[in-house]
């Protein structure tokens, strides 16, 4: 609203010059952000060409880029990225749904909390990755061996945050809900879930990044036929070191994409209404 008033108060020419300043600011921040990256890339390139390092360990950028192009050309890149993302989203979706339901139950029903608090703490002490031998025994070297671990890890993470979120809802809100006609299941739906939403969403964020880390490792252990982790491992097996670097680049880029496209917006949802999340800019 303040923007509208200041703009309308300015002379006619002002918007154009404001836009010009906006562009200059954009260029300035772009340079500021990309300068360190450029320095690193140039350093890398100098090291690769003149550093007397084995080319296999320090492939020059153009080799890495060629490997990347190879991946694009033979369709592996698309298959790998889509395979990895499919596994990630499938398991985060299922795991988050299960964790939200279970965590809400633990927060709401005293008996549920009492029954599961010890087993939960025990399971929390086991890193998800430690269960891979077990999942491979159960499911063999299949998709299911990977996805089951991811679902487990996501569900556990989301259960804990949801549970804490529901437990820490102001008692006054629950009393108000009773007074204003909410009971039984509608308390869950109308008060517990929205009241715990900031914690639940924090849980989704943590779960996403944990799942991402585990997934890349899982794809190396369980040889499925596509996936970014699988590609990295495969490249090493076949001494394609440029491909290892290209693969890492894609992993980093994908992680960044998930952060920007999914996790940030999730965070932003809660800012407006709950005023709990800070440091977003």
């Amino acid at each position: 609203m303040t923007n509208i008033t200041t703009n309308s108060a300015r002379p006619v020419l002002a918007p154009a010059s404001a836009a010009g300043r906006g562009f200059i600011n954009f260029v300035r921040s772009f340079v500021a952000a990309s300068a360190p990256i450029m320095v690193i890339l140039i350093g890398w390139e100098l090291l690769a060409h003149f550093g007397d390092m084995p080319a296999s360990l320090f492939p020059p950028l153009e080799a890495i880029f060629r490997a990347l192009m190879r991946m694009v050309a033979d369709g592996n890149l698309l298959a790998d990225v889509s395979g990895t993302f499919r596994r990630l989203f499938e398991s985060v979706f299922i795991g988050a749904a299960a964790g939200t339901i279970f965590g809400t139950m633990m927060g709401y029903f005293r008996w549920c909390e009492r029954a599961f608090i010890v087993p939960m703490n025990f399971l929390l002490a086991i890193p998800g990755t430690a269960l891979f031998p077990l999942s491979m025994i159960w499911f063999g070297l299949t998709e299911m061996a990977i996805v089951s671990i991811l679902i487990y890890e996501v569900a556990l993470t989301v259960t804990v945050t949801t549970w804490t979120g529901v437990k820490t809802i102001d008692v006054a809100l629950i009393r108000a809900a009773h007074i204003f006609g909410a009971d039984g299941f509608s308390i869950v739906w109308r008060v517990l879930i929205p009241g715990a939403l900031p914690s639940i969403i924090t849980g989704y964020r943590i779960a996403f990044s944990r799942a991402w880390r585990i997934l890349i490792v899982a794809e190396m252990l369980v040889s499925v036929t596509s996936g970014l982790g699988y590609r990295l491992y495969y490249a090493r097996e076949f001494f394609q070191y440029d491909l290892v670097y290209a693969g890492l680049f894609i992993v980093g880029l994908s992680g960044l994409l998930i952060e920007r496209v999914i996790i940030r917006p999730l965070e932003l949802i809660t800012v407006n209404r709950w005023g709990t999340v800070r440091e977003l800019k």
Partner: protein
Amino acid sequence: MTGELRIDHLSKVYQSDKGPLASHNVFDDVTFGVKAGEFVSVIGPSGCGKSTLLNIIAGLDRASQGAVFIDERAVSGPGMDRSMVFQEFALFPWLNVRDNIIFGLKSLGLSAAERGARAAKYIKLVGLDRFSDYYPNRLSGGMRQRVGIARALAVEPAVLLMDEPFGSLDALTRRSMQAALSDIYLRTRKTVLFITHDIDEAIYLSDRVLLLSGEPSRLSLELRIDLPRPRDHRSGAFQGHVETLQQAIIQSRSASSINTEANL
């Protein structure tokens, strides 16, 4: 729905796990009525059980003995014939002002249009027309409690219960909220049961003031306030009532301290 409240020989004992000696008798044999359209305050020192009393009437807590009747129907749990304004506001932070008020309307079986109109009416009544779309975290304490009052009135209950609604506001806001509530009361003529520990506030707002004190607490004084509204804090009659209540509180305190000494 006329809105008559009757409290019949109500007692509350908090049972302790550590045996009968550790259990604590909060209040004992409390009996009073609030006529339809009457504004009654219950005052008393902290710990006298006045909030517990209100929670039992609201159906959020259970009495050990006795019963609560609204228009001669016994209360057995929360119901839409009673609504409540909380000291800590208890607004839903994920809902804006309008939706906070609509929350209570959803169990009344109104259409969406009726709910919207009803919410708008009560938002206007408490003077928050311009803030319908605001979330509670952007409102000041006084404004939040206006939302709390609008939410409670919007379900059009037989009896409005108010649990120290201005207890967490600063002194200036408190004064202006008292004036606003007095004005709202004159316009709606709801049956109100108001809990406070502020003598001045009780006299400013109420038709009758009840003093709950002792150990266990009992009703130790009933004071009728027959001053025309809006009332003037500085008038002689007003100050006279203040004096009466202060004396009664001092007396009840010394009585209970003598009791404690006798027990020792």
